[in-house]
């Protein structure tokens, strides 16, 4: 009997390999290096081994920028992958390229793959959905800013719990400085944390047109009273040692590792790095807000990347893409990815599963980001940002903030300049997409 099965399998295999029944192959270009990249490969292998109709081929393409630009170059040369991972600031560029992308909700409908947008965290999918709430890309690795604090230094300064508001950050920092700390806090990704998320958390627009969701003729609004007040405060804090600037991106995190600064506001996905590099007891808390401005803060917005499906592939290949995206969203895979990388779980089921497994008990602080994202219903100001040329706008904002930190410009003047330069970039994008 076993011999017979084997013979049939061999025959079957022969006929399969010799005809169009061979597994449909699709390429997935991604930007996950290091440990996260290995985990990604493991997940893909699990998918490939789970069935024999489709085969996903993951290709590491370098940084987010490199991955996106090489996918665009490939599209222009008609050699694009079926799936590409694009960082959140590239969202508007992808969305505007209507002839190049296959919206995920459309793909799922066309291929009749099971798909319910309600399964996903709305504060995550909001960033990637159109005005009608249709998901255009599939969230994959999302993070949000949180506050990390050094428990040992807090204990030394006689502070029992982490600060919830910026008022408390200032008060606690004074105590920390008095107990010998070099600085109170430092921040990573200053535009994302101190302006984009500041605006969302206080339910204040960052840009017109519902933060850019409603059209291309968007104007930037981050030179309003709230943002100017916050940057003015940070500048004052910088002079008194409460805040210390440590560079763009996450260049400032060594200040926290080396215990110069007792607090760090940065991405929730920095958790893994903290575990590895912090030689002290650290805690995670939600991103502070101004108690003087709001009673209850809104949710924060996300960073990270999502998966876009590109046009120009066969029907069979799109079936493979849909099956794979479905697989990625299953609670088991999502929970594994979330627990391994520290990125947010993108479905409610994955969060519940992780909770049930007791992960948050054994890894305290890893649920802060999820709770912060889901504590309130996203408003038009906390859904996300959709700005063309966003990469350059971030650069403009970084420059403006640096001119404040170095004392060359006042907060109001610097933010006004950034808005003016940013608007020019938005107009350029608008003109290119008419």
């Amino acid at each position: 009997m076993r011999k017979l099965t084997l013979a049939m399998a061999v025959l079957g295999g022969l006929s399969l390999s010799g005809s169009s029944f061979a597994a449909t192959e699709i390429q997935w270009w991604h930007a996950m290096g290091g440990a996260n990249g290995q985990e990604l490969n493991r997940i893909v292998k699990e998918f490939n081994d789970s069935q024999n109709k489709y085969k996903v081929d993951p290709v590491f393409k370098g940084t987010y920028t490199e991955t996106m630009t090489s996918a665009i170059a490939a599209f222009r040369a008609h050699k694009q992958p079926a799936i590409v991972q694009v960082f959140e600031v590239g969202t508007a560029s992808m969305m505007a390229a209507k002839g190049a992308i296959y919206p995920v909700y459309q793909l799922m409908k066309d291929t009749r793959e099971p798909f319910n947008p309600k399964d996903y965290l709305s504060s995550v999918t909001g960033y990637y959905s159109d005005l009608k709430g249709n998901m255009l890309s599939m969230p994959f690795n999302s993070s949000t800013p949180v506050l990390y604090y050094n428990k040992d230094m807090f204990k030394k300064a006689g502070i029992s719990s982490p600060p919830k508001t910026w008022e408390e950050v200032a008060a606690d920092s004074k105590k920390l400085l008095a107990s010998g700390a070099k600085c109170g806090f430092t921040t990573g990704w200053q535009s994302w944390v101190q302006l984009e998320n500041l605006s969302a958390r206080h339910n204040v627009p960052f840009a017109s047109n519902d933060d850019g969701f409603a059209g291309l003729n968007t104007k930037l609004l981050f030179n309003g009273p709230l943002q100017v007040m916050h940057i003015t405060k940070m500048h004052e804090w910088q002079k008194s040692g409460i805040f210390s600037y440590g560079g763009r991106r996450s260049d400032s995190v060594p200040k926290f590792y080396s215990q110069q600064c007792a607090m760090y506001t940065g991405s929730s996905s920095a958790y893994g790095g903290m575990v590895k590099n912090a030689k002290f007891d650290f805690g995670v808390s939600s991103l502070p807000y101004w108690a003087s401005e709001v009673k209850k803060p809104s949710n924060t917005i996300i960073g990270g990347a999502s998966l876009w499906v590109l046009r120009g592939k066969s029907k069979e290949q799109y079936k493979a893409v849909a099956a794979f995206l479905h697989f990625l969203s299953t609670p088991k895979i999502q929970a594994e990815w979330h627990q391994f990388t520290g990125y947010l779980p993108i479905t409610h089921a994955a969060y519940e599963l992780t909770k049930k497994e007791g992960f948050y008990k054994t890894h305290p602080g890893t649920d802060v980001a999820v709770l912060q994202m889901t504590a309130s219903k996203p408003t038009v100001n906390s859904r996300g940002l959709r700005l063309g040329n966003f990469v350059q706008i971030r650069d403009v904002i970084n420059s403006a903030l640096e001119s404040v930190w170095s004392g060359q410009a006042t907060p109001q003047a610097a933010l006004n300049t950034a808005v003016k330069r940013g608007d020019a970039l938005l107009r350029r994008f608008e003109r290119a997409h008419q």
Partner: protein
Amino acid sequence: MSVYFPQKKLPYLLVLPQLIITAIFFLWPAGQAFKQAFYREDAFGLSQTFIGFGNFIDLFQDPLYYKSMGVTMVFSFSVAFFGIAIALWLAVMADRVIRGKMAYQTLLVWPYAVAPALAGVLWWILFDPNIGPIALFLDRIGIHWNHFLNGDQAMILVVIAATWKQISYNFLFFLAGLQAIPRSLIEAAAIDGAGPFKRFWDIVFPLLSPTTFFLLVVNLVYAFFDTFGVIDTTTQGGPDGSTNTLVYKVFKDGFIGLDSGGSAAQSIVLMAIVGLMTVVQFRFIERKVQY
């Protein structure tokens, strides 16, 4: 002095491979850039609009572009000047050494094998305000180093990183140039009572002028075009645009900003600037060169 070849076709045939390479790797892409500079295009190339000089007008109305030009001039001339001056000094010193000559010369050439991007990262770590040994040392002697905020310090850092690498290259040429100077000339001057300093300025330096001129042209071209790796791995043009050189701006607007038209217009302007500079160098400085 001219050489005449009997055949008409052979010389063309001999330069053909070089011409083909130039056409494929320079003329064709340059032509593409030239065409793109007159179009406005979205990132995916789905729509293209001819806008004439629109991209150039945008460019010359942008105050940041003029800032970038100023930054590039400071950066390029600093790199060329320090690269040539330090290499010349090292070459003169290495030429004098009698024992262990090979060891010194080899060590001085080594940095050239380091890729520009890596050179940038090396210096970046050495000067990191939080963990870099040089920054910590400077802090101790009272110089507060923070290239994340201080534009001048960031500029000094990228100049050091870009120059360090180039010194080895310049050194090789100067050393060869020095060794080609006949000993008898220097000895004659010494017998006539010229001191080492006078011997250098009146004999060695003028005789090295063809080498120096060649290196000036090559170094300026290097600083204008080949240094974007150094900047990309260190400051990325910051803080506040103080190290945003023209070539880095071309890269950033084109490859990160995905604005192919604006980036192409910039590269046309950059090509024109470097072309003009090279012409000026050959017309005016070369006259002072003694071959």
